[in-house]
């Protein structure tokens, strides 16, 4: 059986992207500014990470106008939701220590 770390999603693994996906997984849709404030990053950092997630097909960006203002909201796609669930399942296995047999406990951080 392969180590669960091999099942960690490369796109979601980055700390900011993981936070963004974790935040979006809890709701159907959220405005950009809410995600930015929740994850505690700047507009530019979030924009960059959203572009990566959108390219991977994990996040959908919606633009709509309310009055004179254009608002941007974000949602996870079905692929993004499934990828996050797989990623979390792998994290749970690692956290439970079930995959530590035969591997080094003090392995270096990836």
């Amino acid at each position: 059986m392969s180590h669960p770390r091999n099942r960690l999603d490369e796109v979601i693994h980055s700390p900011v992207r993981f936070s963004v996906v974790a935040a979006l997984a809890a709701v159907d849709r959220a405005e950009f500014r809410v995600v930015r404030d929740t994850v505690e990053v700047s507009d530019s950092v979030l924009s960059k990470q959203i572009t990566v997630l959108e390219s991977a097909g994990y996040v959908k960006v919606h633009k709509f106008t309310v009055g004179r203002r254009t608002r941007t909201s974000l949602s996870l796609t079905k692929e993004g939701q499934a990828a996050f669930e797989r990623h979390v399942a792998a994290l749970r296995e690692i956290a439970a220590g079930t995959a530590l047999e035969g591997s080094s406990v003090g392995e270096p951080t990836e």
Partner: protein
Amino acid sequence: MRQDEAVDALEQAGTLGARMRGQGGWYGIFGAGYAAMSCGLILAIGFAPSLSFMMWATAACLLLIAVLVTYALTRPVQPRSMGRLHLGMMGAWTVVYSVTVVVGSTWLPDVAAWWITGAVLSAVPPLVAGYVALRQSRNPR
């Protein structure tokens, strides 16, 4: 990735998820507003002293619906499965409202108990949906 890092990541995901869900409780306010509007509308139809009163009451309800829709559309977070919850609420409300108004207007126009019961029952679907959304928003996991 080490075991402690995985634990930290899972905790962080839980915290972020709870923070986001917490912002979806607004549907509880929407449900309460809709329940009040529905009660008022049915009572106005049942006990309207004149046609003009009923028309004013209907106009006031339409205005309240417009306020509620605007409120819902301008919320920054849409709770998980809100579409399904809202559709279910609207479906149940439509059935109760239609039965109350059609049966009441046709066969029981002067039976106060019918209109009061119908008004109270019509408030149940939006209140239940609002309660479900509120519970969901306070769920830490």
